[in-house]
């Protein structure tokens, strides 16, 4: 018997060892997967803070042999007031006669077609500071017989040599480094206190502590005073912030905090009244009225206010359009942003009603016939069709003229309809899921009081399923917002110097458009690393937009899921 005991003990040890090793191995793999994802998140966000292109800019070095020498720069280095925004362009002009060295400062201003030429004679230069217009040629005239050496000491590289051919294909100007932030706080101290208060209250609501509740208990009966203080603070914050956007948001924070405080105090009173003790913190959530609503509004407010931080920082990147191929840092995504909004809007208008209708038919009306099963299978499979195939569908149906083509051209309308078609199966599936989760009893009780099928659907099923449908639609929209492949096929271009016209496909006009993912794609394809920084910035804007949309969807879903349960 002892031997068997020993054997069992040994095998148990072995088994325990195997068990520990195996489970830790599994946990390790899982953690590596999570780590991988975490690194990805970090890597995508980390490199996208633009520092501008620094380092040595090679100076041009030319001999002037004849009397005329011509140079050209591409982008203004002064702002509208005439102040320099980059290093000044300084030419060092020297010649042998008397070892003369002269410096010439050149300011390129943004107005076009301004000429000012410089003449060189024995006494020196005719002027020391020249202002010339953007994209105009600049001439140096020399009346000397000997060779004049021109060296550029600082500033951007000129784009043309004396024969008029480009010297370098592209170059970087240290200009308009994308995020210009002039020190100081984004939020005023009072606004930060408002946010802190709101966050503090949210934490108390979610995880109440008994000692804090005891402190709150002392405020019972003084709700009016607390409310008055908070409303006064809201007023002060607004006035001190000069009615700016963050101050208004902070005032909203104060008002919400006041509501939450009074609800909390009343809740504590009610809890004590019903014979509970303050130490039973888990009972608190049942005694606060409208707890979920307050929590949802406050989290929405907090998320929204983080979105407004960029408004306080001057970002030409968001407000400028594409300039030209030589000036990456002064280009922006304004046109792309408008394009994205229009495409999404058209996609939403065209796809959401049809998709929800299809979902209602499939869930509420359809009998399990062959047609229904076919439609169901098609929806499931369409959701997995590669996006580029939808693009080709859009190209053949919406863009092309003739045959079954509608001939809208490569316009926003065609892109929006293509995206709508792509979003449709996703929305149908999500809406079906939402409709399926509506309890059977609801429908039956509505039928029981004599409603028709359409009345049941319209008045009872749809309102209950609405949160799920909304969530699905928002998620589908955020997915098509990031899709570039169908639009590449439909014919989006990257070089858009105007705001797009949404209905140009129907009524004529300039049909060209672009969206943010397309901008990222084309900018990444450029050889110049400066454009890559722009692509990174555009990516971060796109991700911010997507995260905002997705978090709204997630918050909505969490909230309503809790309510339904």
């Amino acid at each position, binding site marked *: 018997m002892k031997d068997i005991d020993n054997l069992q003990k040994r095998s148990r040890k072995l088994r325990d060892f195997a068990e520990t090793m195996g489970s830790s191995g599994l946990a390790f793999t899982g953690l590596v997967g999570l780590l991988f994802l975490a690194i*990805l998140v970090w890597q995508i966000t980390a490199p996208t803070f633009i520092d501008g292109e620094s380092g040595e800019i090679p100076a041009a070095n030319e001999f002037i042999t004849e009397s005329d020498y011509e140079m050209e720069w591409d982008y203004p280095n002064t702002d509208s007031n005439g102040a320099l925004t980059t290093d000044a362009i300084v030419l060092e002009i020297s010649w042998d006669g008397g070892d003369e060295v002269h410096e010439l400062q050149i300011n390129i201003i943004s107005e076009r077609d301004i000429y000012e030429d410089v003449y060189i004679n024995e006494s020196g230069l005719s002027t020391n500071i020249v202002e010339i217009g953007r994209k105009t040629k600049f001439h140096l005239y020399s009346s000397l017989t000997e060779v004049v050496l021109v060296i550029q000491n600082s500033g951007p590289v000129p784009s043309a040599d004396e024969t008029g051919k480009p010297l370098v294909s592209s170059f970087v100007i240290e200009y308009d480094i994308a995020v210009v932030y002039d020190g100081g706080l984004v939020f005023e101290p009072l606004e930060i206190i408002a946010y802190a208060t709101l966050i503090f209250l949210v934490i108390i609501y979610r995880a109440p502590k008994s000692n804090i509740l005891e402190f709150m208990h002392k405020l019972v009966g003084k709700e009016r005073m607390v409310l008055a203080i908070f409303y006064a603070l809201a007023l002060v914050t607004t006035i001190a912030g000069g009615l700016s956007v963050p101050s208004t948001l902070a005032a909203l924070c104060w008002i919400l905090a006041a509501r939450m405080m009074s609800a909390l105090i009343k809740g504590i009173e009610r809890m004590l009244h019903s014979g509970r003790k303050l130490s039973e913190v888990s009972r608190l959530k049942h005694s606060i009225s409208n707890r979920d609503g307050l929590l949802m509004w406050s989290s929405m407010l907090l998320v929204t206010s983080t979105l407004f931080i960029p408004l306080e920082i001057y970002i030409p990147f968001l407000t400028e359009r594409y300039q030209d191929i030589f000036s990456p840092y002064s280009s922006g995504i304004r046109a792309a942003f408008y394009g994205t909004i229009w495409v999404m809007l058209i996609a939403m208008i065209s796809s959401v009603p049809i998709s929800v*209708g299809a979902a209602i038919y499939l869930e509420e*009306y359809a009998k399990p016939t062959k047609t229904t099963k076919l439609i169901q299978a098609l929806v499931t499979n369409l959701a997995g069709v590669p996006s580029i195939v939808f693009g080709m569908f859009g190209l053949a149906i919406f863009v092309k003229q003739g045959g079954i083509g509608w001939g809208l051209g490569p316009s926003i309308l065609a892109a929006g309809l293509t995206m709508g078609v792509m979003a449709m199966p996703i929305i149908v599936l999500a809406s079906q899921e939402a409709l399926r989760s509506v309890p059977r009893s609801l429908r039956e009780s509505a039928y029981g009081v004599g409603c028709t099928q359409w009345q049941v659907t319209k008045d009872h099923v749809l309102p209950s399923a609405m949160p799920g449908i909304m969530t699905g639609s928002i998620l589908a929209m955020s997915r098509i917002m990031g899709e570039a492949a169908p639009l590449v096929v439909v014919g989006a271009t990257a070089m858009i110097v105007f705001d797009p016209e949404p209905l140009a496909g129907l009524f004529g006009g300039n049909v060209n458009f672009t969206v943010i993912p397309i901008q990222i794609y084309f900018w990444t394809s450029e050889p110049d690393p400066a454009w890559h920084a722009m692509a990174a910035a555009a990516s971060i804007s796109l*991700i911010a937009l997507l995260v905002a949309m997705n978090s709204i969807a997630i918050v909505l879903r969490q909230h309503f899921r809790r309510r339904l349960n």
Partner: protein
Amino acid sequence: MSFLEYLKNNRARVILFLTSFSVILITLGIIQTLLFESINFFSELAESRGWFTFDWDLAGITSGTGIAAAIFLLVYIAELLITKFTIEQETKLDIILFPKQFVIYIAAALLVVQFFVLDTLLMGVAFVFVFITWRRLASAVNKQRYGMQLSDSTLWRNISLGFFLIALAKSITMNYGGALGEFFLTTNWNPALKPVSFGVNSLLLTTLQVAFGALIIAVPLGVGCAIYLSEYAPPRLVAVVKPTLELLAGIPSVVYGFFAFIYIGPLVVELGEYFYANGWIDEPPNVLNPINGAIVVGVMILPLIASMSEDALRAVPNELREGSLALGATKIETTFKVMIQASLSGIIASIILALSRAVGETMAVTLAVGTVAVFTANMFLPAQTMTAYIAQRVGGDLPFGEIGYLTIFAVGLYLFVITLTLNLIGNRVLAAYREAY
């Protein structure tokens, strides 16, 4: 009740049906677009090669393959009727159905001989089918006479139907033969420069390299992630990680492409330099390569696999887990021998759907893998996937109807068929496991 009255009484139903009918229209539109333009492509290709001028002639039907198709159809019909065929009494047909044994041997020998005589392989196969169906018919009649149970297996019927469809397709497309063969069998893809050649295999190879490379990365990590989340991780962590996974799955592919282009590419090049220095690859590596694409697509499909597999693991009833633990199994044994077994179809479905997603991935692959179509096993050189070809080709200005424009539809149709097949299998597997619990 007239049709108009029906419309009047069921307005809501009719309108809703029309909305759901649009799904069928969209699918038909996609198939029509791809198919129509692909046929144009093949006919134009055949025409440009001087093989034939396209005209809807069905000359192929009367060829040997066409006759073989007809024979297969007859076999299929005979198989359909086999159970309804009742010959209780002895009739004159018995001489045909039950000849002397040596006649059967001679017929079998003839079957072997005709393979060497006939130049159409499908015809030979058709005669084999006729022989087998003949014997099956005889045995069915025999069984009926002696009151035995007839087997209701439809396997043979389906096989003959399959052969019929193959023969029919081959006889119809016989005139495209050269074009189809060039497209599906050769490996040189060069649609822009003369002499042009359209061998889609070089695109397909890169696509598969990227997709399976992505699976190699994503499956262990994704499934490990799912097991960890559903079996080991504390609920608070799960509550944080699940929405994060959703967010990650929502990050646009072009951003992943940028990420691959800027960050992963140089890392892969360093690895390639090491390989090159050791002489394992014969050409210096490039920033754009399929490994780069495989890594980034792997990261893209990781959230998909993780969240779908986790759903599958969570769908397993708790009784199974508790029962296993109650029998004395350890946690790891429960995980491997019960949970994974029980949710295997869900996990496999997630992998198949992820594969389909990886095959159809466009922007990330375009930016990460490059735009040079080559057929090589060296995965450190720039290559081009099918999706990347489409995206690159339409990026330029192309006149509609030209052969370069038509290629994208042929490639697109091939891609569509591949992903549709994968999706069908994946959804079938998914439905099976959903039914199980």
